[in-house]
């Protein structure tokens, strides 16, 4: 467990019965009729100390840390649909922290340190699996870029190993390292602490633990307006009535511009579709998460046995959770190129989500011109891996009304000052 991170009150201190092999056995005896609800379905109160808009992973994590670290328990999460239904429930579940810029490394490694032990913190098995994330280089230019990353990452105290094509083949027997292919595998770097987690479980685990601490999670409650008084936030209008609060945190990936507009805040955000797909399940063949920029795809095999594939965002703006066919078409060709075994497997399911991207491909974690109104958005394709870290620093920002050292670089004013954290340069698709 990492030093220096305040993980708050962990392990369901609110008194919910805990999950364990013993509780399973006990409940088996009563044919599972007596399991407690994972979370309540409360009616919204008239007023809370703080409202989090958005019941995805980041929003629920924010609420959980507000309650567990900062002791703010009179708070609510309002979600327009079902919790975890946005990008939390539709990503490719990759977790890593091997980012190049110091600011990025700081927040993603903060998140990774929270991931380590989160299952126990929340008493919910998130299936956080540190099976390693291997990024592959296909040209000398990419190898140079990789070297830069590895040096920076290592000096940031984050694990990263350089692998030769032969070492890659030994680790990932499925991969094609034939040097005569169009973009041969020329090397790679591995973050052993990286891996995957069960995405839905993250939302549910945070929701159950937040509920345990008294947080009201209100689903099917859409925010329709922001109430302001004298330059400060006073509450929100929702489809289930007015809810007052002096602090409101907005965490609505995919629609943050829409929420921003309600408070006359224009965000430097473009919303675009991101697509992913899975194969039919097969017996385990791929233990490591593989990412490739040049051929533009990433792949892992889920615990269920499905090959999970993703690639870059579609190039047009959209709020529809669907993309254009050429993207998966190219992604699949790339995957077959690197993993010829895939040719005779079949696509089982394909889906899309909407990612909010900033011009510098880094998120916004920020106060706004409206006092008490905070935004956490713009995670682009990199949001899932950041979930605990994002919630942790955003809760800190809301509770203290000032960003901590990790969150500070992500303030909105960087688009005025030009102090961007440009992950475009070396990021490519690699999220």
């Amino acid at each position, binding site marked *: 467990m990492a030093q220096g991170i305040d993980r708050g009150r962990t392990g369901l201190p609110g008194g919910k019965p805990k999950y364990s092999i013993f509780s*399973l056995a006990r409940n088996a005896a009563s044919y599972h009729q007596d399991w407690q609800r994972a979370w309540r379905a409360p009616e919204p109160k008239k007023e809370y100390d703080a409202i989090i808009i958005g019941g995805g992973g980041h929003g629920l994590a924010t609420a959980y840390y507000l309650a567990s670290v900062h002791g703010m328990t009179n708070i609510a999460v309002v979600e327009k649909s079902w919790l975890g239904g946005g990008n939390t429930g539709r990503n490719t579940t990759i977790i890593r922290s091997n980012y190049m810029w110091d600011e990025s490394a700081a927040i993603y490694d903060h998140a990774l340190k929270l991931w380590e032990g989160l299952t126990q913190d929340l008493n919910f098995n998130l299936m956080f699996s540190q099976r390693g994330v291997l990024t592959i280089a296909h040209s000398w230019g990419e190898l140079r870029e990789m070297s830069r990353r590895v040096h920076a990452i290592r000096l940031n105290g984050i694990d990263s190993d350089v692998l030769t094509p032969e070492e890659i083949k030994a680790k990932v027997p499925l991969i094609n390292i034939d040097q005569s292919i169009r973009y041969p595998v020329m090397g790679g770097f591995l973050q052993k602490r990286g891996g995957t987690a069960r995405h839905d479980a993250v939302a549910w685990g945070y929701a159950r633990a937040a509920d345990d601490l008294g947080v009201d999670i209100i689903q099917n409650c859409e925010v329709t307006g922001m109430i302001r008084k004298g330059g400060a936030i006073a509450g929100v209008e929702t489809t289930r009535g007015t809810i007052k609060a002096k602090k409101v945190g907005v965490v609505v990936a995919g629609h943050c511009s829409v929420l921003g507009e309600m408070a006359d805040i224009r965000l430097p955000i473009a919303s675009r579709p991101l697509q992913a797909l899975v194969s*039919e399940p097969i017996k385990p063949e791929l233990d490591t998460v593989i990412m490739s920029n040049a051929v533009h795809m990433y792949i892992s095999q889920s615990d269920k046995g499905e090959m999970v594939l993703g690639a870059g965002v579609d190039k047009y703006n959209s709020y529809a959770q669907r993309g254009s066919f050429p993207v998966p078409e190219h992604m699949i060709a790339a995957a077959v190129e690197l993993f010829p075994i895939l040719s005779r497997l079949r696509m089982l399911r394909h889906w899309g989500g909407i990612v909010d991207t900033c011009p510098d491909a880094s998120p916004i974690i920020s106060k706004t011109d409206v006092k008490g109104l905070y935004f956490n958005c713009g995670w682009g394709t990199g949001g899932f891996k950041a979930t605990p870290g994002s919630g942790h620093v955003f809760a800190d920002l809301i509770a203290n009304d000032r960003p901590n050292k990790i969150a500070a670089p992500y303030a909105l004013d960087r688009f005025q000052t030009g102090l961007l954290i440009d992950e475009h340069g070396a990021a490519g698709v690699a999220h």
Partner: protein
Amino acid sequence: MFKSSSKNHSGGDMRLASGGRINRDKPLQFTFDGKTYGGYEGDTLASALIANGVHLVGRSFKYHRPRGIMTAGSEEPNALIRLGEGAKIEPNIRATQIELYPNLKSESQNRWPSLNFDLGAVNSVVARMLPAAFYYKTFMWPASMWMTYEHFIRKAAGLGKAATDHNDPDRYEKTNAHTDVLVVGGGASGLMAALSAGRAGARVILADEQNEFGGWLLSESDTTLDGHAADRWIADAVAELEAMDNVTMLKRTTVFGYMDHNYLTMMERVTDHLGETPKHMPRQKMWKIRAKHVVLAQGTHERPLVFGGNDRPGVMLSSAVRSYITRYGVAPGRRAVVVTNNDDAYRTALALVDAGVYLRAIIDMRPAPATPLVSEAMRRGINVYTSHALVDAEGTRHVGRAKVARINPKDGSITGDAFYLDCDLVAMSAGFTPIVNLHSQARGKLDWDDQQLCFRPSTYHEAAQCVGASNGIFDLGDAMADGAKAGAAAATAAGFKGSDAKAPQVDAPVQDYRPLALWKVVSDANPGAGPKAFIDFQNDVTASDIKLAVREGYHSVEHVKRYTTNGMATDQGKTSNINALGIIADQLDDKIPNVGTTTFRMPYTPASFGGIAGREIKGLFDPIRGTRMDQWHHDHGATFEHVGQWMRAWYYPQSGESMDDAVQREVKAARTTAGLLDASTLGKIDIRGKDAAEFLNRVYTNAWLKLPVGRCRYGLMLKDDGMVMDDGVTSRLGENHFHMTTTTGGAAGVLDWLEEWHQTEWPELEVYMTSVTEQWSVSTLSGPNAKKIMNKLGCSVPLDDENFPFMSFKDATLAGLPVRIFRISFTGELSYEINTPARLGLALWKNIMAAGEEFGITPYGTEAMHVLRAEKGFIIVGQETDGSVTPQDLGMDWIVSKKKDDYIGKRALERASMSLDNRKQLVGLVTENPKDIIPEGAHAVLDPNQPMPMEMLGQVTSSYYSPNLGKSIAMALLKGGHKMMGETVYFPMIDGQPPIKATITDTAFYDPKGEKING
């Protein structure tokens, strides 16, 4: 009638003596789990296995329960097969979709050591400990053990095993097609739609996933059309359609994706049914269709009833039983029980009786059905138990008896003593679900039909129409009329004069299509304690699991799905969705439409990755671009490197030379005599128009309006965020005509960028841009002897500095070839970039090499080019820059106009942080030990002994050994670097070596005053 009379359900010949659409003249052999069986052409693997008395074909995902064949179509959840041999193996293929071919090899999956004796079945014993989502509640202690637990979870999960030989020998094709009308599904209503549209003259594509057209009509023996057996009408319709030039008929073709603007994708399985793929044919072909109008005639899926043991081999969908009897000529059992909540299963009961199967009884959950079919069953002496339900289908590896009890049909409670019926077949029906998958993919909306208990299409987002059963119209005559009408309307909408094809006179049993609305599982056990009643068969999700999820607060249908994995199996909920919704609604005391549906997504049924990738793999994954001189480079031993899509000559090793040796030799030659570089890959854009100069003035940071004709100028292009995006030399060919060069990798992006600005921001400017990269071959001759070689080649223009100064160009002839010579230099030496029409490039190159031979001219590759420019401190965009570097950071303030009103990036450069002292700035580095070459990407620190995370100044962008200087040189972007001249920095190594010590210098390492530019 059976040919043999064996009573053993687990073996024997179940083939009926006559009937079916199999070709009894073409017997075939196949193997399943190593054992050889016989079947006929026209069989599916499923029908052939059933004909051989084989029902147990797989083990379930979680509990490893024995599983048999449940359906006769693409919705099959159980009978997943590992098909083929060696490199052709495909896992998870549905036996119901595999057409039998000679010597087919198939295996069961997810069992060890064998299908009959599967150790995994121990899970069934401890099943009580494994309710839905149990894995979220355990395996948490100790934390360090998770990876071990997970290892075993992963091994237990997964379905089939992929091929061990990974090189797919088959070929896949793609094709694009436009059509007026796409008809999806070639059953009764689809054929009618195609007839209407085809007769109107519209271009029609009719696609059906099966091996022949006709759909469920092929499985009905009790139906006549215009007084003839249904297959005669089908044959006539198909023959008429096939005779039409405007109609394309595609069998074995699944429409799997429906995207915006009536763009659909389909996979044609061209040769899968042959076993061997003929060399000249692809295995599969993906069609990408743009249709003016789409008619969706996908039919229905029958729903299983939810009762204890409903997954037992021998328990099948009622319609599937009928299909096996009528279409395939096999009896799926000898002693059958039919259990239903609707009329349709009575037709199966009658078909069973007609086939000579001993029908024990019809168990009808409805209280008092009084329809013609019920009367007919009674008239024929069939035992009909109304207000009864099946409580448990008992047996081990096969159903052996059915436990039946009287119920109250209103609430499903048991009202009488249970009794048993021996049987080896249970045909079940819980009603029909219109197939609306593609409709929903295309964002069509659904309405709940409270009478027929199904979702029906309501509104459409695309130009499409669902017809027949997929439109909730189950009566055959009505469905066919519906199809005819939609086909005509589609043709009309596409600009033809469509009229409804006349539907045939249908004579079929009259049915009541309203099933009993009872979602509760009938059970005499305590809640949660009864036999497992399955909803999602493949994922082993039971009714209890769904209820548990709801009890635990997972109320959204999406939560239930994700928590229990219901509907997430390879059949994607085709048989499970509505049953699950019914149970959720019951549990929440709500109505099904309020519970909602999950989103249907592509693909309708799984589509092969090979088919989607098509031929865009291997050599065709991405085109390789090459220059006209590449063959020469190959012939002279060049090694190549990737630069974007190009392969460029990297260096030319002579025998025995290492890369370093070769590069140093090339670098030296360019400085001491002459070097020749193939620079053809450089991006080139022809820019014309009366506003061309103004346009350049806006996209480059420096001034362009006054550049004289005949002169060249270096320019930096910024993104709107002020960061360097590309660079290059642009020359003024005429008053309104420029020749721009870009970086090799950036060419396409730059043209894109220029077009975007022109088209979206400055449409008023008259300027035209054309990529001419491929039109010119470029040989760059560089070095002190360059001029001598040019003269020797008979250059038609004077080369003295007055007539042909640095940064100018001339049109000329050289070695008798037309050329445009640019006097520009990326090496710092006297240099000529000689452009010639592409086709003459090789001739020019050879001429220059020949003329230079006496001077020791040396071809040099991109690596030497990099060293040469680094010696001069010239940047390479993408190496010294990464999208976060301004011209000022690069020490290139001189190229940023202070006078211009505006240019792209100007406003961004005025932001506060752009002038901060601690920005990363480009500096030179000289290592303490001249032989130490700092790895590119290494990061500088002031104190190499500080703890992690270290305070980093920045990274090395370029680093080489300079043979001309006799020492290592590097460039780096370091925080505040411009004010650190002469200071010492350290570079910690990641390979465990001691840090490298270096001094910060200017970047102009060689000839800092530029004295060599004129030779």
